[in-house]
């Protein structure tokens, strides 16, 4: 779920723009400059992957993938998410342009947290990577939902009901996301394990 224009108080919208600019600058610095075009091409894949809808009961959910972005891109994940969200906003109006900072924080901070978590605990065996990857997928979506609820409640107590509904709406996404991320990570660890090493970083490993 992306925040559209006019929902957040202007101070919050501008403040989150400033904060995400700082984090994006850090993320750019942690990415090797010659790798930026590659990150951009990978961003296009994440963008396409998030357009795929998976049926769930009577409705369908689309994947958010903050956990997978974090696991695959590490610190470059924030800049990839910022560009991906800007593209979604410009092309489809998923998320308003004035709320871009807030949306980038909402998806980017979980991606960074998941990247750290994944590279800290992924271990060596394929089974463990699958387990940790699945946890990352669920954790990333859960953190994104919590951040969304926090951002919505900055509007005052009138927004509490909407924030609760938004949290509840994310429960099926968390379940699907956990399973699909686990299976994707297990596929990657069998087929191309070097992708799970955060390939575009200045240093090989996250701290």
């Amino acid at each position, binding site marked *: 779920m992306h925040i559209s224009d006019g929902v957040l108080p202007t101070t919050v919208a501008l403040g989150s723009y400033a904060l995400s600019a700082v984090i994006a600058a850090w993320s750019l610095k942690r990415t090797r400059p010659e790798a930026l075009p590659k990150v951009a091409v990978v961003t296009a894949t994440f963008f396409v*992957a998030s357009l795929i809808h998976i049926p769930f009961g009577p409705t369908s959910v689309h994947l958010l993938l903050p956990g997978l972005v974090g696991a695959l891109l590490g610190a470059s994940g924030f800049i990839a998410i910022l560009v991906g969200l800007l593209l979604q906003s410009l092309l*489809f109006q998923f998320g308003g342009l004035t709320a871009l900072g807030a949306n980038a924080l909402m998806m980017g901070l979980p991606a960074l947290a998941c990247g750290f978590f994944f590279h800290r605990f992924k271990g060596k065996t394929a089974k463990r990577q699958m387990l940790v990857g699945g946890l990352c997928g669920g954790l990333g979506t859960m953190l994104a939902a919590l951040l969304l609820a926090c951002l919505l409640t900055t509007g005052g107590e009138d927004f509490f009901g909407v924030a609760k509904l938004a949290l509840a709406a994310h429960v099926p996404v968390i379940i699907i996301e956990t399973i699909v991320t686990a299976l994707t990570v297990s596929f990657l660890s069998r087929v191309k394990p070097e992708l799970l090493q955060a390939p575009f970083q200045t240093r090989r490993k996250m701290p």
Partner: protein
Amino acid sequence: MTPQPIILPGWSLAGGLLLLLLMGGASSWGIRRLVRGARQRRKGEPDWSLPQLDGATAGDSPIHRWEVRCKLVGMLGFAFLVVSLQDLRTAAVAGAITLSLLFVTRLPFDRSLARLLAMSGFLGMFLLVMPFSAPAHPGDTLIQFGNLESLPWNLRGLHKAATICLKACAVALLMEPLLATAPLTRTLQGLRRLGVPAAIGQMLLLAHRYSYVFKHEAWRMASGMRLRGFQPGSNRRALGAFGNFLGMLFVRSFERTERVYDAMQARGYRDRFPEPEPQPATAKDLLLAGFFLLLGVALLLADRCYFSTF
């Protein structure tokens, strides 16, 4: 002290909700028909189409001729002023202004309609929930349906939700005049000259171009899966197929980045793309940007000084 609610019979709530649902369903169906009417879709096939970002650059209007930096500052400044509004009436005026821009630029309406449709789910949630969830303050008008005492309907919540929707629509209608009236490279050049790091613009340009490529790749993989009898669903087998599908998409994209980057270097890429000749900003462009900012400030002043009764 909580205000005394106006009591309406219980069936009116059910009737009202039904009417709202019917209206929402009918309008979204109508918009969908309008937007996708020309395109034939096979049943069960997901919609893989990506819209064109800068499809109407050939037009000729004051907005088309506007220098891109002034346009970005004027329109984005206006957008931030519009989202600060708090009253329904000023938000409606803002919406009318941005709607009139569509007429001035003579842009096709279907893209703007698609943008409004994309927000409808998120905004519908506000319209449905906020009247019930807004706590009662002194001076509010409450409506109680039958003997549902624990679920009063607060008109202040409805006002707030409707204002949010109008503001979102106003800014969404501004997007097409902002983006479609100049080629994307020129818009990004304007952003760079306004101080946005060049890397962001280049990444956006590349990601935009390659999203079409990977969309095609995903479409080919999905047709292959369908040919082999894949049934979408949320059971173990279908989710396993989705996981492998995503994994394969990433493997192919990472492999493609290497080839793309080599090809770019072979063609002389040195960390920047060639840019169009920068346009000079004339006094007229600056005046137009100033006019938009003043319009936004005037709306905000009217909002805070005259309409602060709610």
